[in-house]
Structures are given as structure tokens and as C-alpha cells.
């Protein structure tokens, strides 16, 4: 050891320095080798993590259009909006920020946000929301320190509240709520794209990365509804006026094309403006009652019971029954007609529909069971109601919150003879308007059950509409011959009835009223103070070209709400449709 020290002390300084320098270089080389070669993967990942950004390219939500006669018009569009935010630690002049925002976006300022501008402990404050592009540009021009703009999009409704429940709305998270927006969220929202690239400090993508990748976003479908803007607007206006006339609080109208199952209008009252959904206090107005509020539709269902009777062979158009008592007994219950109805010894299916005879449909049910209301009769009626008319099942219409309604099967304890006698005239079972109108359409169009639909197709970039074919769910809901017989009966019944004499000449307008009692939730019994009036009918010349169903809740007009409240709405709309659709009268 002393020898080694001696050797070093004798060594020239230059040589010693060389050894030290070389040694240091050796250490550096080894360290660099360790970092660059052995640890290459780790540092490569670290570098990528800090340099490469994965950016999402937001797709544009699909727009929604309606028909306007032969053309299409937008019902829902998108608009670019901005959120104005501040980083108080970067704000140098809070008073200027306040002044600029009040001048440019006074109505969009988030309450109390400006007061927090001096709080340096916070790094992010939203100052204003839903700021338009023009406002955003004005704010940007002011070049105020500490202020930023975040781009977003919002739905715009040029027709305001038109078809509000049918459309639904989109919440701040970009999720569709209620109506079409929720039901077709997946089709409307599109697919986000991605951009993976090396970015600078401002996250601006640079084109220097060999691993840069760009996947374009796929915008949502631009949907064209079968709804006609003019029919929808007229339906809403007629409904609003009709409800006001009878001082009713609530109602709905559905207009369908029985030849395709396409919905032409779906109106509800009360309604709301989807662009101001946040202001709504009563959330029930968001619901589309046409698809989500099943009810005992009452006597409008007699048309379908008679149709089932004709098709099953239980009755025919010449069948006569004795209705001189005006009542029928089923088990221990006596079912009677209303007092004003005539008591005839030779009542027919036509008089059953003409005078809305409960006894007539109970007779039809009885005939299904070979002369008595029994299991066979119940099975037959259930088969028609459930399997042919598809009650108790979702129709599959493009609406959120559709409910299947209730129909009690004959093998259940509650599915007894009395219930089925009630079901024959539309009590003791719940259906939605869309179910009733779809079944009615199938019963009068020759027997073809079309799946009700709101979608006509999609709008291409060239402005053309790619229509989708209507979906047939079943043929022979009724046989074509029995369908024609039923259609004729319904037409004749209206023609001879209260409304028929005022119908325009040369057209076949058919329909049936319904007034159903409502169960009082307090007593659990049918109340005489409240009822729901309905009207279900069709119109056209040789063949039906539209089906209208009207529902009026809580009418104060007196009489039977089906006749006094719902019927007039049907009449006004039907007469208007004959002109609007240019339906030529029969000669």
C-alpha cells in the first residue's frame, strides 16, 4: 500500500490528470449506457407520456328533421357554444374581467362567479355558460389575462316546443333524455375519433412523431322523422284549443298512417320547450303520454272486440241479438248500457258500434265461448288482444319509456269472466295510445300489423333521404275480408251517429268514442267525478289514409268526454287532414 502511494506521488501530474479524466469518462459512459441502453424502454415511455397526447375528436350529434309536405325541415340542430372560465391566479385585473363579461355575456354569467375572481386559492371558476360564438369572439378580442374559453355544443330547436315529448332533450353531459334523443342515443351520438400525436406545450399536435395516429370521428345519423311538421303543429294547436274548450288539463293526439305504421304527429299537452328543460318544475311533462301512459281506453276498444268477433267467426255483420233489457249478466255481475241507449230486440254489430252497446260486445264475447262467457271465450278474446292486436307488449316505437300496458291472461285468477266482459268494452286492461292506434290501423288496413315508427330514414350529405321500409310484424291480424267488414261497420256507425252527418261528402270517416271511468286512488274504486275521453277513428276516401287517436283527461264539459271533449278534436283535425293531404273525394 505505501508502495502504491509512492508510485502515485512519483507519477507526473499530467498523467494523473489523464487517469482521473479517463476514469470520469468511463463512469459517464457506463452511466449513459445504463440510461440509454438498459433503461431505454423506461425512459422512452416517460418521454412519450410527456410528449405524446391522445386527443379525442368529438363527433357531431345527429340532427333531427321532419317532413314538410314533400321536403324536410330541421327540428333539432347543433350550435357551437362556449364556457368561459377563469384561473384567478392568472387574473391581473378582476374589474376588467367583470366589465367585459357583463358587457358581452351578461345573461350567461354564472351567479356569484365574478365575486370569486379575487380568490387566488382557486384555479378554475366557470364564469359563463352557453356563450355564443359571436360573444366568444368578442371576449377573445378583449385579450383579458386569466380567462379561457372551452368549446362545446348544444341542441337548438328552431320550432321551439314543437313535438317536445317526441324529441326529448340532451342534458349537459351530452346524453339524450326522454323521447327519441334517449331511445336513439347510440345512433345520434356517433363515434368519437382519436388523434395521437406529439404536442407542444400548448397541446398543439406536431407532425414529427413517427407513431402519430388519427382516427376520424363518425358523426351521428341525421334522422328524418315520419312526422310532418304541419300535421304536428296543427295537432298541437287543435289539442290545445280542444282542451281549453272543455277546461281539461291534459291530453294527447296521435296521427298515424295505417298503410305504413308511420307516425305523422304525436302531440301532448301540457308541454315544454326542450331548450329550456332546466326550467321545468313538473317532470311528468317530459313523458310522452302516447307511449308511456297506459289507461283503460274504454269503448274505443269495442271496435277491436267486434273485429275479433268477426274474424273468429263468433259473429258476422248480420248477427242479431236481443238487447231489449239493455243489460247482460256475467256470473254475479250485471253489465248494462247507458240509459240513453235504445233497447232493441234485434240489435246488431252495427248498432253495437253505433250506440256503443256494452251488451253487444259482451254478446260477442259470449259467442266466442259458444253462447256463454267461459274459458274458451276468454282464451279467444285474449288471443286476439294479446297475439293479434299485441296488447301487453311493447310496440318497439323509437321512444324512451314505452310501457307495455296490462292485459290479464285468462289462466290467472284475476282473468275471470267478469274481467273479460269488462275487457270487451275496454275496461279492466291498460293500453297505450300507440298500442291502440297500431292495432286499430292493422284491423282496418286489411289486417297487416306494421310496427309503429317515427323514423322515415336518414338524411344524406347531398340532402337526399334514404328511407327505410316499414316493418311488418304480422299479417292477418284480421283476415282482409273481415278487416273490410269491420272498416265498413265503423264507417257506417259514425255516419249514422252523432258526428257523421257533419262529415264532408265523398269521404269515409269512421270512428268510435270512448269514455272510461278513472279509479280514484283514495277509494280504489271507479270515480264518477273524473273520466278520460277518447276517440279512435280513421279517414280517407276508398281506403283509410290516416288514423287519429285523441285522449282528453279531466274534461269539465259534462256528458260523455269521448263525445264532448275528444270527438270534436278528432273532427277538426280529420277535416283539416282531408284538405292538407289532398285526399280526393269519392264520386
Amino acid at each position, binding site marked *: 500500500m505505501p508502495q502504491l502511494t509512492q508510485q502515485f506521488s512519483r507519477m507526473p501530474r499530467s498523467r494523473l490528470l489523464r487517469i482521473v479524466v479517463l476514469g470520469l469518462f468511463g463512469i459517464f459512459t457506463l452511466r449513459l449506457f445504463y440510461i440509454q441502453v438498459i433503461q431505454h424502454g423506461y425512459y422512452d415511455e416517460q418521454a412519450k407520456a410527456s410528449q405524446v397526447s391522445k386527443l379525442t375528436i368529438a363527433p357531431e350529434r345527429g340532427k333531427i328533421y321532419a317532413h314538410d309536405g314533400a321536403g324536410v325541415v330541421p327540428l333539432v340542430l347543433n350550435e357551437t357554444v362556449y364556457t368561459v372560465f377563469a384561473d384567478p391566479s392568472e387574473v391581473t385585473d378582476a374589474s376588467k374581467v367583470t366589465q367585459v363579461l357583463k358587457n358581452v355575456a351578461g345573461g350567461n354569467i354564472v351567479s356569484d362567479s365574478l365575486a370569486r375572481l379575487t380568490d387566488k386559492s382557486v384555479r378554475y371558476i366557470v364564469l359563463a355558460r352557453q356563450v355564443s360564438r359571436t360573444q366568444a369572439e368578442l371576449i377573445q378580442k378583449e385579450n383579458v389575462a386569466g380567462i379561457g374559453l372551452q368549446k362545446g355544443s348544444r341542441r*337548438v330547436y328552431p*320550432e321551439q316546443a314543437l313535438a317536445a315529448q317526441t324529441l326529448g332533450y340532451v342534458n349537459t353531459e351530452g346524453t339524450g333524455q326522454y323521447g327519441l334523443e334517449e331511445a336513439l342515443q347510440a345512433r345520434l351520438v356517433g363515434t368519437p375519433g382519436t388523434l395521437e400525436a406529439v404536442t407542444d406545450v400548448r397541446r*398543439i399536435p*406536431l*407532425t*414529427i412523431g413517427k407513431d402519430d395516429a388519427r382516427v376520424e370521428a363518425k358523426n351521428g345519423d341525421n334522422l328524418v322523422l315520419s312526422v310532418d311538421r304541419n300535421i304536428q303543429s296543427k295537432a298541437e294547436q287543435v289539442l290545445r284549443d280542444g282542451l281549453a274548450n272543455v277546461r281539461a288539463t291534459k291530453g294527447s293526439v296521435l296521427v298515424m298512417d295505417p298503410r305504413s305504421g308511420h307516425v305523422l304527429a304525436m302531440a301532448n299537452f301540457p308541454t315544454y320547450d326542450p331548450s329550456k328543460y332546466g326550467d321545468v318544475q313538473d317532470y311528468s311533462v317530459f313523458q310522452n303520454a302516447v307511449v308511456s301512459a297506459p289507461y283503460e281506453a274504454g269503448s274505443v276498444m269495442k271496435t277491436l272486440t267486434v273485429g275479433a268477433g268477426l274474424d273468429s267467426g263468433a259473429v258476422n255483420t248480420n248477427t242479431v241479438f236481443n238487447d231489449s233489457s239493455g243489460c247482460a249478466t256475467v256470473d254475479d255481475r250485471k253489465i248494462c248500457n247507458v240509459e240513453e241507449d235504445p233497447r232493441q230486440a234485434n240489435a246488431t254489430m252495427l248498432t253495437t258500434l253505433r250506440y256503443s252497446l256494452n251488451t253487444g260486445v259482451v254478446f260477442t264475447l259470449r259467442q266466442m265461448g259458444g253462447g256463454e262467457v267461459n274459458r274458451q271465450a276468454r282464451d279467444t278474446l285474449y288471443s286476439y288482444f294479446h297475439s293479434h292486436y299485441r296488447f301487453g307488449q311493447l310496440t318497439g316505437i323509437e321512444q324512451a319509456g314505452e310501457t307495455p300496458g296490462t292485459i290479464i291472461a285468462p289462466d290467472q285468477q284475476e282473468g275471470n269472466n267478469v274481467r273479460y266482459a269488462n275487457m270487451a268494452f275496454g275496461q279492466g286492461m291498460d293500453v297505450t295510445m300507440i298500442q291502440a292506434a297500431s292495432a286499430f290501423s292493422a284491423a282496418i288496413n286489411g289486417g297487416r300489423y306494421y310496427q309503429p315508427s317515427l323514423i322515415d330514414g336518414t338524411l344524406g350529405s347531398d340532402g337526399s333521404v334514404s328511407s327505410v321500409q316499414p316493418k311488418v310484424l304480422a299479417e292477418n291480424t284480421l283476415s282482409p275480408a273481415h278487416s273490410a267488414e269491420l272498416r265498413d261497420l265503423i264507417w257506417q256507425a259514425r255516419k249514422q251517429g252523432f258526428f257523421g252527418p257533419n262529415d264532408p261528402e265523398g269521404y269515409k270517416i269512421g270512428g268510435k268514442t270512448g269514455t272510461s271511468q278513472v279509479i280514484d286512488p283514495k277509494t280504489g274504486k271507479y270515480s264518477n267525478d273524473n273520466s278520460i275521453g277518447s276517440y279512435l277513428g280513421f279517414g280517407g276516401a276508398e281506403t283509410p289514409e290516416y288514423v287519429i287517436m285523441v285522449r282528453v283527461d279531466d274534461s269539465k264539459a259534462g256528458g260523455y268526454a269521448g263525445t264532448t271533449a275528444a270527438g270534436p278534436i278528432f273532427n277538426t283535425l280529420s277535416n283539416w287532414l282531408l284538405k292538407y293531404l289532398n285526399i280526393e273525394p269519392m264520386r
Partner: protein
Amino acid sequence: MSYTTRRNNSGFSSRRERSWQRNQNTVAFAPRAAMGPITHTVLVALMIAVLGLIYLTQVTKTSFYGYTLNTQSEQMASLKAEQQDLQVENARLQALQRVKDSNVAKAMTEPKSVDYVN
């Protein structure tokens, strides 16, 4: 007539001259100034610097394309937003309620009767 040979008969002869053969040039021209190690190092450093500059120019140029692309994308987005605004404005102007409230619509009357021509 005189005749001289190229052979040198003096005492000293170089290696080249010693290995002289016919038709071979015996004169070699060497540069007077030779490059030393420092010059070599400086030149190599300069070459590396030039190469580095070229590389940096290319990289900057490519990065610049990124900024150009970004600017153009922003312009596109801005124009798209403007187009959206115009679409919305157009739709609002043609909205049914607005049309109904127009003076032209208010002046319209319901036809008393409609006849169809076949």
C-alpha cells in the same frame, strides 16, 4: 550532339530513385502545408454542426407543418361553426310559428270550397 541519361550518378539517391524503372515518373509533389490534428478536429466539428443544422432545419420545417395544419383545422372548425350558426338562423327564419305570424300568412283566407280536377 550530346546525350545525357536520367540516371544520377551522385552519391545520394532516394528510395524512389533507387527503385526507378523505365517510363516511371520519379518526381512526387507533396503539399507544403499539412493539416494538423486541431484542424482535423475543427473540420469534423464543423461538419457535425452543419449536419446538425440541416437536421434541425428539417425537424423545424416538419413541426411548422404541424402548426400550419393546426391553424387550418381551427379555421375549418370556425367556418363549420359559422355554417352551423347560419343553418340555425335559416331554420329559425323558416320556423312554422314565424311563418304563421308573418303578414303574408295573416292576410291569407280559407278557401270556401275545394274542387278537384281529374
